[in-house]
């Protein structure tokens, strides 16, 4: 099961849950599963966050695969200068 | 306001143009004569991007009125290379990667030429102080100084 970690601003929607185990094949799949647990959270995730899957940061994730042992962190989107 | 007719020699070529009395040499070079190699960075004489040589003397063309060029000689970046060949200063800038965005490069090349015309064997400190009127925001000046040192050596006929 992939481990998902929520940053502080999303914990308001997860009732304080910081870490969760979820089975998902892709980021899209993961968000769908999270939406079932925390209705409304998908609006804050699709097109709004970057994600680090196993340490690789992806800007605007969607179809990116999530493995059975993946660690998934949601991040503020940072571009740079 | 009626325009003034000015005759001047730019990069060895006789030129004439009409300009308003308050127009800077920089504006006329770029907008009237199409010589856009000389750049505007500040128009107040602080950045050196507009460096040209007036009768062999290094100046900021933004601080000179175009009418002042009447009967005089100007060298701009377009006049530094000769035909097919780059000037050694230009070659060394390329070899030493002494430019990143390149906007300050024309000014530096002209300023470096003015320096080496006058002082063929400058110390690092002399180079830095002579070029202190040319701002570069990309390189930190390190590779520019090295390029000028190397160009000086080449111009003195020494192996580099």
């Amino acid at each position, binding site marked *: 099961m992939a481990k998902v970690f929520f940053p502080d601003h999303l914990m308001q929607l997860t009732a304080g849950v910081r870490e969760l185990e979820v089975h998902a094949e892709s980021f899209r799949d993961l968000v769908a599963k999270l939406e079932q647990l925390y209705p409304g959270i998908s609006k804050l995730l699709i097109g709004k966050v970057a994600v680090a899957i*196993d340490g690789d940061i992806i800007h605007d994730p969607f179809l990116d695969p999530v493995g059975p042992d993946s660690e998934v962190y*949601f991040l503020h989107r940072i571009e740079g200068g | 306001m009626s325009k003034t007719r000015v005759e001047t020699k730019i990069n060895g070529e006789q030129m004439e143009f009409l300009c308003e009395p308050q127009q800077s040499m920089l504006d006329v070079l770029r907008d009237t004569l199409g010589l856009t190699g000389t750049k505007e960075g500040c128009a107040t004489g602080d950045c050196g991007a507009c460096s040209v040589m007036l009768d062999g003397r290094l100046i900021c063309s933004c601080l000179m009125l175009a009418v002042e060029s009447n009967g005089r000689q100007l060298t701009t970046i377009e006049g530094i290379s000769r035909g097919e060949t780059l000037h050694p200063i230009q070659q060394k800038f390329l070899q030493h990667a002494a430019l*990143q965005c390149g906007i300050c490069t024309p000014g530096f090349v002209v300023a470096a030429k003015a320096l080496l015309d006058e002082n063929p064997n400058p110390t690092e400190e002399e180079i830095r102080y002579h070029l202190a009127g040319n701002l570069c925001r990309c390189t930190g000046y390190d590779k520019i100084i090295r390029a000028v040192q190397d160009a000086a050596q080449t111009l003195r006929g020494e192996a580099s």
Partner: protein
Amino acid sequence: MSEARDYKVIGTRVVRPDGVDKVTGRANFGADFSLPGMLYGKVLRSPHAHARIKKIDTAAAAKIEGVYAIVTGADFPKVGHEEITGGEGAGDFADLATNVMARDKVVYHGHAVAAVAAQTSAIADAALAAIKIDYERLAPVMDLDTAMADNATLIDERLFTAGLPEKATKPSNVAAYMEFKRGDIAQGFAEADVVVEGTYRTPTVHQGYIEPHACVASINQGGQATIWCCTQGHFDVRSMTSKVLGMNVADIRVIPSEIGGGFGGKTTIYLEPVAMVLSKKSGRPVKITMTRDEVFRASGPASATKCKIKIGAKKDGTFTAMSAWLAYEAGGYKGSSMAPGAMCVFAPYVVPHFLIQGYDVLVNKPKVAAYRAPGAPQSMYACESLIDDLARQLKIDPIDLRLKNAVSAGSQAAYGPKYNAVGFKECLEAAKKHPNYTKKLGPNEGRGLAAGFWFNAGMQSSAEVHINENGTVTVVEGSPDIGGSRASMALMAAEELGVPYERVRVVVADTENAGYNNVTGGSRVTFATGMAVIQAAGDIITQCKQRAAATWGIEADLVDWKDGQAIPKPGVNADVKPLTLAQIAANSGRTGGPLLGRASLNARGAGPGFSINMADVRVDPETGKVDVLRFTAIQDAGKAIHPAYVEGQMQGGAAQGIGWALNEEYIYDSNGVMQNAGFLDYRMPVASDLPMIDTQIIEVPNPSHPYGVRGVGEVPIVAPLAAVANAVRAATGIRIPDLPLSPPRVLAALEAAKA
């Protein structure tokens, strides 16, 4: 993905392909472009830092001979609130639109309120002078302390602080609050043997690119437009301009000129929509350039900040807890670099317990834009200064203190995920061994050290590789070349294809002939656009193998590509000579058509970059002037594609950081008017201010890139601020926490210490 290999051209110091035009003045930058029939546009700017616009009267200006168009906020459509994607300060399109042209309010001195297009600049100036505007002046809010105070004058009366634990009930100048936590901060400090804290301030500074913003816009009566401009991202110019003007992106072609510096400040738009509306109204092309004065007053500087840091540590130097309170000025609209600043502040260290609180604060200054590792220089300046004091207090060498707590592969980053392979420890070890670390110092001299970090971005890039009929290679990509990236693209294409560097040309194409590309910035071009070029070259190789196979009458999977040639795989029975790229290209019409390779991607796996900088300074006790005697920049580049350009990034960033530490700041009067809007008094380092900048490139390959590349462009500006400040501390014995460490500030501190 990356394995150690012998590179043929990667890592060599080739001359860049666009260099000759740049040393001869032929290269065209933003202001070098002109069109027949072109008009000159000029912008009228608010004389007040904070005011309501009551009335604009353009009648007198319209009567001036040679004036062809006048526009105000009324000529721009209303834009709805929508988050600007990918920005480090979550900006808003509605704010972007009103920043480009004010509607009912001005929120900084210099805010655009009207614009004209005229036959000459002189006539345009006369027209601006003839425009009459009635303002209702409001009290300017000029610093974050004033802005955050109870009963502060509000800059946006409809703004409520986002992100507070309990929903805000009163409007505020604080646009957003953010928190990042790990563990139990109270417990962490309780476990400490030593606790240190400090409050640090950094001023508003500018990226200082030598080329002012410039554009030419030409829109025809059918609504199709072309914009020539200097920009770090022409696809962003297109999308942002289309949003601000309510246009179809397909109707706007943006052609990027060469760009005379950006550093993040040219990742947004200011002039382009204005030039477009003037062009539409006048029916002519319109050119607008900013003066240097306008660049300072009305583009996007970097946030001034106040950062309070607290660190708890054991006697042996192990960090137990860290906390940060970070307030960043956003300018007249929300969206500072507070979030990345908060994510970077503790990024180099293993910290079991931390609490980071960040505030995005409105003030009546120009809306900030990105500046090279946006947010990180300010917050890490504070943390690295405090770590220096901690090292002194614990009597531990500052490198050893950092080594004790340094992250490495598998460490949990303070911003969340585990790091893959990173090179922070390697930079620290290199610093320890570096001869500059032990050079002798004289009276009034001191040495300071600090760490730097940046995530580095991936994001979207597209590339095509065309093989010309003589086997030469044209790479078509869409990343404006700020620092020599064409050379790196050519090196990567040459390496992949197995051809000499000299056989490769690189074109930076516009929005109509390049595939979509995100901005040149974020230290992403060598990494992400490079990856697209590598993949497009790989596509060519696949096609070449197919063409060779067809020519030889064997299966394509029996063909190898080696040193620029197709050869049968070892053991394959085929009596054929190798086919070079040139031969395959010459024959391509007969074997299937032109050879065109392509790739587009959303690059993942950008590798974070770490650095260590060391500065030696001498402080003149009589004047407070700080001279930089020696500067050493050590940085992990993963793999340096072109070492000279990597060094160039390190040296350029060092110079900017040194300027930020020692001299640069926006100085305002009590009316909120900038007093030093020129290069004379906004004092950036010149050649005589700096020594040679020693560099050492560390290479801990990024496992997610075929060559191991990490972005390098932004990390270099982060560490110099604290490296210089720590050197001044060492030289004088006094910690001066507020930047810049300009002579008056240093002298005052020296004299206060004597008293």
